[in-house]
């Protein structure tokens, strides 16, 4: 009769499969239920200009964003169909003046809310108001462990100092804190200091997330791609820290799939356990899905319910299960383990989202693409293209680090 706690983890990067823990029937790939968690990208507006931003290169303008009432209706509908958690993200979600109201509404309808923020726009008063509205968790992105590297990557002077301040307020208000550190060739050397920074900030959790290369990050691949040696060292550092800090700081590690043998189980499978909602109200299988041209995504402003769009829309059904797979996926023993990898990456690198993700060593173009990435990592081209609504701005010649 020993009591057990099965981990139904909702983070897409986690090896434990959340949906499978709660719903078991038939083929893993064919199984899909209502997601446990949904990502709400409230806006694409952001004061930072990180060159690896996960938003699409074509950003939604402020004028196209859902209104407060529209978001509230969406939150109510999500709770009704069985979603348990909402991640408020962006762009920068605190750029929305109605954030406290939206968090309060999420609490009122029974959703557990996470805030995924760059933190630079938050005052202590506003953070306290969010806590009072029922916010349950704060995740703050860091670009380094000190202002020189961090502010350069963020493209925002003074960002790092403000983030540190907001992280301290977060713990003072007794909110759990996740430090999200996006890692790449320009900041990997700081990893030991970033881990110590997370401990000093009394964070509960640290995400060491290597950049995933689509959208803005693909534009900046030459400046961001780590070398194989850097990645091997990173993996060692993370493993050592995970053992040393057990019970103090949980560390989640996202490996860059360029240096893996098998592709990542992207989003836990297309349309299987996750969707996100774009600022303009599109329901998407992942935050990069709009980069795939030729797929029509339905909006919460359409005449369909969110539940209908999830179950029935063509875009979600297109790459569900295993029926769409070409060889080598079709007969591969891993087809229900990684589901063929990432559709967005397959599209970005081969022009067809229905191809095997080139991150897989079994893809016919794997060799060619990843040789190129290795060459880029070694070439020492360090100049960023900053993310903005104008399609990107190259870093000033004298700004970039050595």
């Amino acid at each position, binding site marked *: *009769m*020993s*009591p*057990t*706690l*099965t*981990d*139904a*983890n*909702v*983070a897409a990067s986690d090896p434990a499969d*959340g949906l499978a*823990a*709660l*719903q078991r029937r038939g083929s893993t790939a064919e199984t899909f*239920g*209502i997601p*446990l*968690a949904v990502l709400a990208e409230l806006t694409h507006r952001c004061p930072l200009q990180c060159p690896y931003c996960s938003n699409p290169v074509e950003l939604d303008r402020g004028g196209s964003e859902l209104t407060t009432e529209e978001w509230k209706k969406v939150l109510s509908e999500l709770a009704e*169909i*069985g979603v*348990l*958690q909402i*991640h408020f993200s962006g762009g920068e979600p605190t750029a929305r003046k109605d954030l406290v109201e939206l968090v309060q509404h999420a609490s009122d309808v*029974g959703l*557990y809310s*996470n805030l995924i923020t760059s933190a630079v726009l938050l005052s202590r008063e506003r953070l306290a108001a969010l806590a009072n509205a029922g916010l*349950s*968790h704060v*995740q703050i992105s860091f670009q380094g462990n000190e202002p020189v590297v961090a502010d350069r990557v963020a493209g925002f002077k003074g960002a790092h100092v403000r983030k540190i301040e907001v992280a301290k307020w977060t*713990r*003072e208000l*007794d*909110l*759990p804190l*996740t430090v999200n550190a996006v890692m790449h060739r320009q900041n990997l050397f700081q990893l030991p200091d970033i881990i110590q920074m997370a401990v000093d900030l*009394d964070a*509960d*959790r640290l995400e060491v997330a290597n950049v995933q290369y689509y959208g803005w990050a693909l534009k900046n691949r030459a400046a961001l791609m780590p070398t194989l040696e850097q990645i091997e060292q990173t993996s060692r550092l993370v493993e050592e820290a995970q053992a040393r800090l*057990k*019970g*103090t700081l*949980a560390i989640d590690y996202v490996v860059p799939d360029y240096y893996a043998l098998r592709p990542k189980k992207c989003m836990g499978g297309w349309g299987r356990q996750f969707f996100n909602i774009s600022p303009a109200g599109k329901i998407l299988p992942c935050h990069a899905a709009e980069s795939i041209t030729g797929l029509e995504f339905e909006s919460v402003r359409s005449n369909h319910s969110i539940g209908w769009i999830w179950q029935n829309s063509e875009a979600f059904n297109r790459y569900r299960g295993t029926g769409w797979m070409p060889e080598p996926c079709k007969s591969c023993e891993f087809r229900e383990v990684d589901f063929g990898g990432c559709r967005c990456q397959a599209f970005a690198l081969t022009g067809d989202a229905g191809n095997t993700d080139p991150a897989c060593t079994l893809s016919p173009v794997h060799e060619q693409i990843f040789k190129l990435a290795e060459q880029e990592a070694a070439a020492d081209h360090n100049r960023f293209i900053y993310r903005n609504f104008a399609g990107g701005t190259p870093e000033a010649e004298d700004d970039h680090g050595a």
Partner: protein
Amino acid sequence: MASPRHISVSEASRPVLPRHAKLKFDETRQVWVILAPERVLAPDEIAVEVLQLCDGLRSVADMVDQLAAKYAAERGAIATDVVAMLQDLADKGFLTEARERTS
């Protein structure tokens, strides 16, 4: 102020779920869940029963007595299992302890 870390669960502990770990019955899936930062845990029936007793007032010893009586089971075995489960939850950061009380 921030909740205490490094909780070592013993029979004397009076554990309670922190504000950010919510035990909830999921109507859609008809199961109990623990909602935590970017995670959902699925406790089994007995774990749910233990967690419902975690009110920051009861000691683990009281809970074990109650469960041993209810299931007419050997107390020692129940104590081992309950402490292990609660320690697992504490190590994940989803269990805290009531502050020292003066009474």
